[in-house]
């Protein structure tokens, strides 16, 4: 498809805007609806979330804790994440000793 330079530029700007919006948007996964207090604490502890728009989604598989996703970054503070880490540790340990 042959694009004119102008169209290319506009497309670039549009995509950049979308990306910025996506980066600004923060999704917090939790096993129950978070209270305002908890969201405030979250913003306090993670500086990147200060001016962000936080969307809280429910995910029962987390058991407890939260998972914060902004842009391509993901901070896993859930119990499920810890158990997965434990599983990986066990796997590494098993293969390292044998």
């Amino acid at each position: 498809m042959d694009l004119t330079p102008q169209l290319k530029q506009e497309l670039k700007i549009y995509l950049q805007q979308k990306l910025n919006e996506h980066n600004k948007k923060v999704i917090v996964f939790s096993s129950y609806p978070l209270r305002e207090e908890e969201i405030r604490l979250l913003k306090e502890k993670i500086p990147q979330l200060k001016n962000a728009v936080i969307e809280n989604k429910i995910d029962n598989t987390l058991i407890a804790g939260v998972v914060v996703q902004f842009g391509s970054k993901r901070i896993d503070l859930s119990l499920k994440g810890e158990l997965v880490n434990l599983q990986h540790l066990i796997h590494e340990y098993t293969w390292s000793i044998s």
Partner: protein
Amino acid sequence: MEQLGVDYKLIIAQLVNFVLFYYIFKRFMAKPFLHFLHEEKRKETEKERLLSEIKKQEEAMGKAKSEMLSQMRSQIDQEIQRAKMEGAKIKESIIESAKKEADRLIAETKKQLVEEQKLMEREMKETTGKLSVLMVKKALSEYLTEDAKKQLTAYILKNISNTINQ
């Protein structure tokens, strides 16, 4: 003498007869006859000589034949002995190489078994780990009340900076 039955004329005639016979025989028959007898004797001697020669030759041939036979027998025995030894050597070497091959196979199989055992152990440990984590997950999901979950989440949120720094 006539009274005894002796006839002088007859006796004289017989004497003359005898002398005549003797003279004729000696002159005309004795030589050829003797020659014939000598000839026969000579032939007889010749025959005997030939016979003895033939016998000697036969004996010599028999001896040579038996010597050859005994030589051949001893050669055959030697060859058989040599072949037996060769066969025994070959048999030993075959057994030796078969033993080595069997030992090698046994060692390889043992090594393989050990490797498989290790792999099985590893997989078992990993499966045990996975199952344990799964069981803990299930137990926590079912055991933790909503309040407990909230308390846990609040605790995690309070200690966020420590968690992220780790």
